């Protein structure tokens, strides 16, 4: 009994601010050995709260008891007591036993004991009774109801509580961090970082709140609504650093809590761009049909944003053909079918550019100049009507990929193949022993396969025949103009 004030004083001096009391649902012996009385326990809890104590109500405690499968409320074993203490940050546990409870008979009796969870000792007990005899005042002055007597009994029950000492503890403020936001969590040196902490304070608000920022020092917090806010400039040191908050009440009482971490990163996400399927021809990277770009990181780190761009080298260069921007982790491979909103791009030189940003905002850009081959746009076919057949001259410009195989066919208007020739390498001239009839239209198909295995095709184009000896037309080669 005499230890209680001493204990409380020690707690205060040590700066320990735990002063909550967890009120167990009371054991009710009027309902049998396993009876529970929430009403009286709640009333007592309310009284304690009114006295200025920080109370954990029986409804909160009972949830935890069922979680730990504790089936009794009149006593508590040490492990359960400790668990409850930790969960609710409660220094004390109030256990109660309802000995009498009969509103008709005006019978009420209750016994209480407070357990100090720290050393698992009973530090305070109390009990009270009243009965029908108490209902009748000596002079018969009344009437006084059940609730009145219940209230009076609780007054009597708690009157002997060392209120001043308990209040002293109750007044000792308790602070806990309910939310901490660091923005940006990942920063570059010299960048401003803002930390907002929402702190729940029971009791007196702290006189001063200081943020202790690792590698920066102490930063005095400002109060903004429910939050304590501090700002600092990121140091020029890379790493993960802690942020603590220290609340100060008066000269002696301080409470320090770790609230968050912030990261300083000055290294860009360096990577190597790999053009997949690209062929190096005479120092020029040539890409056909589809473009696939892979990434190889020197040191892998999470990516916050990426941008994929293709720039045309035509007309002085720098003209953006396509640009894709997205938030989040970069894909391991970028595949582009070489088409824009306005259609496929033409053959030619382009710059493929990829930029990645890490979480701190450091960026790294890598680009490659490539020659893109999309079609046989510069294929020129000239056909000559000769005495013994048709001779086709084939010329392919602006197509850097070596040709390994070819096939040329001549069609009728009805889709009938008149003749077909095939061979290896690039054909310069193909001869068909086919006599042209001036009335019928002829078509041709040229198929080429490059050394990478891609097939290229010019399909069913009208074959314009030039008679040998007749001057060739000056303008173009017929279908090429159409194309």
């Amino acid at each position, binding site marked *: 009994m*005499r230890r209680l004030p001493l204990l409380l004083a020690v707690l205060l001096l040590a700066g320990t601010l735990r002063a909550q009391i967890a009120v167990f649902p009371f054991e009710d012996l009027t309902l049998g050995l396993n009876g529970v009385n929430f009403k009286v326990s709640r009333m007592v809890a309310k009284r304690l709260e009114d006295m200025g104590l920080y109370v954990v109500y029986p409804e909160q405690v009972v949830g935890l008891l069922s979680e730990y499968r504790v089936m009794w409320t009149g006593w508590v074993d040490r492990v359960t007591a400790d668990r409850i203490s930790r969960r609710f940050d409660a220094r004390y546990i109030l256990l109660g036993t309802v000995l009498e409870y009969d509103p008709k008979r005006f019978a009420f009796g209750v016994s209480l004991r407070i357990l100090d969870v720290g050393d698992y000792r009973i530090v305070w007990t109390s009990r009270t009774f009243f009965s029908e005899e108490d209902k009748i005042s000596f002079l018969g002055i009344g009437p006084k109801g059940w609730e009145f007597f219940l209230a009076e009994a609780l007054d009597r029950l708690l009157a002997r509580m060392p209120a001043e000492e308990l209040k002293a503890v109750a007044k000792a403020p308790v602070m806990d961090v309910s939310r901490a936001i660091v923005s940006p969590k990942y920063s570059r040196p010299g960048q401003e970082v803002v930390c907002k902490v929402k702190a729940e304070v029971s009791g007196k608000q702290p006189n001063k709140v200081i943020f202790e920022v690792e590698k920066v020092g102490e930063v005095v917090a400002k109060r903004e609504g429910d939050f304590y806010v501090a700002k600092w400039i990121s140091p020029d040191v890379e790493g993960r650093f802690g942020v603590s908050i220290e609340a100060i009440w008066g000269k002696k009482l301080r409470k320090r809590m770790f609230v968050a971490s912030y990261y300083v990163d000055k290294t860009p996400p360096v990577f190597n761009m790999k053009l997949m399927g690209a062929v190096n021809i005479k120092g020029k990277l040539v890409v056909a049909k589809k473009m696939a770009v892979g990434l190889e990181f020197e040191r892998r780190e999470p990516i916050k944003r990426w941008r994929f761009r293709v720039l045309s080298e035509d007309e002085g260069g720098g003209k953006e053909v396509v640009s894709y921007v997205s938030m989040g982790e970069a894909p391991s491979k970028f595949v582009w079918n070489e088409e824009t909103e306005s259609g496929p791009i033409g053959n030619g030189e382009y710059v493929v550019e990829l930029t990645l940003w890490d979480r701190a905002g450091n960026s790294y850009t890598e680009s490659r100049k490539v020659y893109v081959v999309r079609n046989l746009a510069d294929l020129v076919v000239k056909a000559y009507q000769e005495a013994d057949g048709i001779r086709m001259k084939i010329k392919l410009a602006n197509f850097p990929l070596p040709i390994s195989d070819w096939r040329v066919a001549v069609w009728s208007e009805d889709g009938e193949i008149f003749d077909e020739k095939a061979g290896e390498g690039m054909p310069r001239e193909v001869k068909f022993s086919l006599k042209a009839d001036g009335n019928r239209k002829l078509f041709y198909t040229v198929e080429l396969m490059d050394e990478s295995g891609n097939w290229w095709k010019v399909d069913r184009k009208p074959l314009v025949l030039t008679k040998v000896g007749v001057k060739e037309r000056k303008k173009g080669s017929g279908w090429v103009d159409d194309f």
Partner: protein
Amino acid sequence: MIFSLRGWVLILLFGAVGCAGRLPRVEVLGGTEVRVCKVAVIPFKNESANPVVARMLYRLLLSKMVAEMDFDVVEEGAIRSFMMYEHIMPGQFFSFDLVRLLRERTGAQAVVEGRVIEAEERGGKVVLSYFLWMKDTLTGRLLWSVYHRRTGEDYRRVLHFGKVSLLSELADRMLDETLSELRKKGLKGCGR
């Protein structure tokens, strides 16, 4: 003279016997001079028909030993846990080996055990009798024992005033008397 000398003697003797019967019968055996601070109170054996009276008396004694006698009382949870670990049924008395083990586990210098012999609550009339004793956990020696019996009527003063009609209140008053007698015999808690 209305009464003869013999008559007065009989009246005085009757009164003395009546009063003596209401006080707790305290037997100090091992001695209250044995200094005890930390005490383990073991749940009482219930020999009455009332199923909750033993626990009621137990809780009240715990409360009083802390609040009024300044004993360092081992929390009931520690005793119950010990009983569960050692497979001791409630109401079962502890052997000396168990008492020694309890001393090692809890540091209790003494144990208090008890039996509720009689408990009735009917029509506003209550009666309770119990037997309590304390043992030294080091030697197993019985330090003191108390037998006490009371009815609610015993506390009636004028008309119905003072009469105790609740079993718990009766138990409370009886324990007050018991502890008061023990205090007179020299029993003290930690505060001395």
